[in-house]
């Protein structure tokens, strides 16, 4: 298998100014490396503030990267400029969490879904464009006649279908899905997940799926990457990660997910103490050390490297493997 996208040491720092003199740097994404194999769905999980959405936007160059490389089909996205970047971007799309914010309320569905065509295929005639838009709408489970409507005429799930149609209209190979079902009810979520699975098969898409929902990620991903405060703490195939989580944070995360079977609730949960620290002021050493039940002096002093403990299973923890 070949990697469609390889991230190497990707970093995105934000500078926060307070007053005239104080400057602080938030390392929102701090040296992330992983591969996304062609045709796979790679999950990215982590809690709020872990940097997962920042990573997505940085890969798409919607944020300017601070460092690292993102190799997409052999080309480093971080070195591209102008027209070259636009050309590669056509192969990549993104769907955001909130379909109420991500669709322009004063535009008709025709203009929303057709916009990427105007950017990437400006020579199309109106009729060609119109027929592509109508066909795409049907492919995501809407009606061709919906081109005339405005976003407010649709429910949350239907809006998310519009957002998916917009992302797929230029036939990308790679789609970043940033919490695409988190704002939806369970029965609506089921429909969108099924749609995404169908579209993946039909168009041979590669997904980077970002979520905090462990049930969703387990269902849809081939591999899972776990982030904590800007760092990758664990990466493994889905079954391996759920059966043998190694990093104490991953174990706490999985243990915090409520069981769906009330007969199992007597099991011992691994509850974390405290809250995630301020990303602008992370603890020294391992960033998880302030909440980790296993942390010792080494953890509070030295940052653990990401090491491969089993084929395909990577962990960044002083207490595991090595």
């Amino acid at each position: 298998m070949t990697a469609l996208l390889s991230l190497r040491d990707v970093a995105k720092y934000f500078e926060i100014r307070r007053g005239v003199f104080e400057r602080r740097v938030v390392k929102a994404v701090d040296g992330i490396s992983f591969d996304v194999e062609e045709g796979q769905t790679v999950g990215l999980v982590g809690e709020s503030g872990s940097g997962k959405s920042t990573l997505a936007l940085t890969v798409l160059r919607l944020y300017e990267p601070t460092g690292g490389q993102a190799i997409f089909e052999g080309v480093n996205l971080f070195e591209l400029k102008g027209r070259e970047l636009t050309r590669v971007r056509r192969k990549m799309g993104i769907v955001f969490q909130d379909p109420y914010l991500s669709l322009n309320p004063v535009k008709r569905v025709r203009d929303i879904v057709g916009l990427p065509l105007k950017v990437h295929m400006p020579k199309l005639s109106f009729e060609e464009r119109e027929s592509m838009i109508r066909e795409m709408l049907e492919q995501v489970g809407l009606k061709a006649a919906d081109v005339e409507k405005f976003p407010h005429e649709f429910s949350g799930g239907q809006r998310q279908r519009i957002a998916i149609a917009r992302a797929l209209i230029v036939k990308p190979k790679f789609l970043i899905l940033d919490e695409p079902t988190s704002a939806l009810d369970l029965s609506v979520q089921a429909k969108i997940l099924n749609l995404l699975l169908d579209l993946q098969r039909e168009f041979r898409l590669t997904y980077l799926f970002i979520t905090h929902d462990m049930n969703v990620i387990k269902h849809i991903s081939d591999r899972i990457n776990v982030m904590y405060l800007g760092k990758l703490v664990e990466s493994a195939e889905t079954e391996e990660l759920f059966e043998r989580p190694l990093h104490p944070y991953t174990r706490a995360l999985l243990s915090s997910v409520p069981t769906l079977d009330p007969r199992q609730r007597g099991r011992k949960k691994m509850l974390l103490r405290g809250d995630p620290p301020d990303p602008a002021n992370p603890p020294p050493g391992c960033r998880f050390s302030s909440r980790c039940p296993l942390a010792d002096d080494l953890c509070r002093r030295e940052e653990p490297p990401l090491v491969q403990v089993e084929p395909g299973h990577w962990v960044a923890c002083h207490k595991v493997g090595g």
Partner: protein
Amino acid sequence: MTLLEIRDLKVYYYAFDGVVKAVDGVSLELESGEFFGLIGESGCGKSTLGNAILRLVPPPGRVVGGSIYFQGEDILRLPEDRMREIRGDRISMIFQDPTAALDPVYTIGDQIVETILAHNPEVSKKDAEARAIELLKLVGIPGAEARVHEYPHQFSGGMRQRAVIAIALANNPELLIADEPTTNLDVTIEAQILTLLDELRRKLNMSILLITHNIGIVAEYTDRVGVMYAGKLVEVGRTVDVLTDPKHPYTQGLLGAIPGRGGRKGRVTEIPGTVPNLANPPPGCRFHPRCPRRFDPCDQEEPALVPLPGEGRMVACHLYRRPES
């Protein structure tokens, strides 16, 4: 012992384009000391039901029928000044967004003290402050003596929800209504908060009515569960019974729609169609247009909530009227 008894409650919103029957004839009993989960998707009326118990339904909503007996007294018929004595004292409520529930210009301590003094004017300010610190310790806020003097913005999201819980518990309520209390929180923090609520319930012997869309937390924490659909209670029973052997086709559909249970990348079971418009709900059973098991009476006759074998098990579905099922 029954703490709260809701009988045939109806709450309608008189909107510009019609009457929305958000809660339409719901009957429910809560026992003393129990953890009850009320589950359903957006717009099913679960939050409206919670608000109605405290008589806090915002206009254009109105309670148009039914009664709510709290310790034997119909609180819907109490004068407003009596209701204010109950609200925040014997029944409290916490909401989804702790930031919105806290006043940004007062310290956490001031807000707890205010709640205590509003209901116990005879208590001295000093005693109330001591109680505030005790409450912050109770909800697991480290360094309570110092943090009682801090403002909400100095607290993290999880700590704010703990502070809100401390305020809600200030007067030892018999019933705590928790409306999506952890929906804005990360899953590791959610587990902390719900474990805390469960411990406090046992320690203080209060009942909790947890309103949520998250089946997982219902499975994990509650004793009994009620399932709402389109303004109706469609199923109720012990959590273990309802979630392991759901009877109502809607409950079955909802549980089937949870991803990650079957094979990876397989299809998630869908519930066909969408929720009805409550200004104009379908006749008969409100779920019938989406129901895979509908038959003759479903589109004409509304099913009543009827008992099934099993402790306190009730379901509103014509399937269970027939002798053979």
